[in-house]
């Protein structure tokens, strides 16, 4: 393992019943790197990033996050989840809490921050994602794009070292995609380590340090965006790109 690898996956395999979703994934992500994962649906890309914060349990192989191994040890899982923020396709905001409460819940109860401290930081985050005026509303009162930006702020509130994005723009109206992508670009610029599962090729091209192509539970091809979009090596990659570009 290289010293600066903040995420280190070795031969990760996962089955859902008889179906093998991951067929041995090896991946090292260095601090500050932005990795974009693309691939057809059912290729295991979402499953893979959900393994990184243990929303799914991998059955073979090893995952180290910040040198802590993900095992059945509850203490390790809790430590890793504190360090890894996640943004979901369907936002998953807590509908019974206000925007501010959504953001401050984990800092108060998990990090044991005081309410005023957590709220001050929460306001700062809302400022950063561009919706400071929505703090006292409920998620149901916001548009999809605003909700997804709140979800980003909620994940950032725990001051994670790594952010996972699971198709963050797939459930959005086209005109709201940009505001979410902008927030993510901002984050990448600030040096956050990010793993992004997305179908937004423009984002991949512009922001990614590395693009990974997943198919059939395997990491088929990896490379810089330039290499990837101009000179893909693998036939499967070429086919996929020819279909979507």
């Amino acid at each position, binding site marked *: 393992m290289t010293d600066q690898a903040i995420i280190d996956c070795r031969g990760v395999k996962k089955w859902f019943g008889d179906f093998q979703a991951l067929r041995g994934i090896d991946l090292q992500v260095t601090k500050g790197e932005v990795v974009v994962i693309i691939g057809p649906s059912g290729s295991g890309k979402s499953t893979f990033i959900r393994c990184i*914060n*243990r*929303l799914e349990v991998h059955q073979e192989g090893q995952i180290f996050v910040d040198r802590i191994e993900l095992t059945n040890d509850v203490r390790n899982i*809790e430590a890793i*989840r*504190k360090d*890894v*923020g*996640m943004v*979901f396709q*369907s936002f*998953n*905001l*807590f*509908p*019974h809490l206000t925007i501010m409460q959504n953001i401050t*819940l*984990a800092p108060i*109860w*998990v990090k044991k*921050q*005081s*309410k*005023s*401290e957590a709220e001050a930081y929460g306001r700062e985050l809302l400022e950063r994602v561009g919706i400071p005026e929505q703090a006292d*509303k*409920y998620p*149901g*009162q916001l548009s999809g794009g605003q909700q997804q930006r709140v*979800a980003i702020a*909620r*994940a950032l*509130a*725990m001051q994670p070292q790594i952010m996972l994005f699971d198709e963050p723009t797939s459930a959005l109206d086209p005109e709201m995609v940009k505001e979410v992508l902008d927030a993510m670009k901002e984050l990448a610029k600030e040096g956050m380590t990010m793993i992004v599962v997305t179908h937004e090729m423009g984002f991949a091209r512009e922001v990614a340090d590395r693009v990974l192509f997943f198919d059939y539970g395997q990491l088929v091809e990896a490379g810089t965006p330039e290499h990837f979009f101009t000179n893909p090596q693998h036939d499967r990659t070429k086919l996929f790109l020819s279909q979507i570009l």
Partner: protein
Amino acid sequence: MTTAIQRPTRPPFYRDVTVLKWVFQIAFLIGIVTVFWLLGTFSIANLAKQNLAVSWDFMARPVGFQVAEGFTTFPESGFEALLVGVTNMLRVTISGILAATILGIIIGVSRLSHNWLVNKLATVYIETIRNIPLLVQIVFWGIVVSIIPDIVVDETSDGSLKSLFGLRLLPEGWIFASPKGFALPWFVPTDGRWQWVGFMIVGAVATRYVYRWRIRLQEAGTAEARAFLWSGGVLLAFAIVGTFAHPVMGIFGPVFGFVAAFFQNTPIIIFQIVLAGLAVGGAYYIIKKRLDELRTPAGLGKLTDDDWFRLVMAAVVALGLALFFLLQSGPVEAIVGQGTIFGQDIGFSQLFTGLENRFSFVGGAPFDFSLPAIDGRFNNYLPDAGHVITRAYFALWIGVVLYTAAFIGEAVRAGVLAVPRGQTEAGFAVGLRRSQLLRMIVLPQAFRIILPPVGNQYLNLAKNTSLGIAVAYPDIVQVGQTIFNQTGQTIPIVISWMAWYSFVSLTLSAIVNRWNKKLKLVER
């Protein structure tokens, strides 16, 4: 030729929607009133033909029967007999709702358990209980109790008692079981209990403040809340201190006495005017609120026909009530306690006199610990020793509790399952522990879904207590039936039943609705 803008012509009245709506509303109202009036007069006339004039006199007259259990077993009037029935019904309903809620939550959560045995046991429980009619279950539990071996006096020895499994028991013991029911040790309330209850009301208020104070500290970040621990401790402290210090509440005695005297001695016309004023004021408030709701920034919105009908009805009812209060002094006298209701001397004045008497009493402990005891000659439980759970009470209570809990369990399960999986994942992703997740994310959301169906189950439970008649439990139905068997006054009794069950059901649903409203999610 230019076409002038034509003024819309008014259609003939029989095609005018506004006119038609009003005509139908009023016709419907008149129709309803007529049907009930006709039904009433016909049945009264028919009963009169059979020498059965409808009369409420039995309410004031002594009844010639004994009630099996209740706050008194020898009611002095029909009214008091029905009152015993009412309190017996409430006893089962309130304790039943509490027990069914707790059991239902346990069953519901068990059905979601990953523990195979727990899961299957809960499933078997639900499928068995909810597929057997409640009446059958109540009768079944009655039979279960009735086949417990009776307590017999053991003649061979010193007259001690033999109970279940041939256990040798003294006339006084800890737990008794016999076909007549069960008897347990209990804290039997004494005269001091009223002062203690008053003390606890103060304690509850104090607890509320302590709870808020702890939450405020937590929010300010100076301390962890532990709000439940704190408020529980304060309440317990009040309960313990109150056991000794409750006579302090005696100072409220004279206050209640003063209020009672006020209701008794103030000229009735003042109450008439106040009540009439309340009716008019209430209508004014309702109308104003409705108009405010309809007001838009541009001014008063257009009133629909329905709005007009509502506003006019509110005004008419209020004026009717006001006139009634002003012209009829009798009902007002009854309410404040200067007159009688059904020949009973009850009302606000009597209520406060009662409170005065109970609070002015300065006495010892509010509760006496007492062991159950048996009258050796008749194998009856002594009514004032320990707590006696009669066969009828037990059969009805366990029947409705087990039955309702099965349905509550299903509602709980459905509610928890209805919280989207994404909520759990999002909670885990921000680092919440399983218990925090359950408490702060899943249960609050599940509760909103659970509450309406569970509220329905509460209503069902309250109404199902009337099945107690199958095991001769003296609730309002059984007592009422005894009364009309004796007096032939079926109609007043049935009206009393309907009024009582409607009152309980409406109260329960009002509580649940209010709660529901408070929990509603805010959507744009």
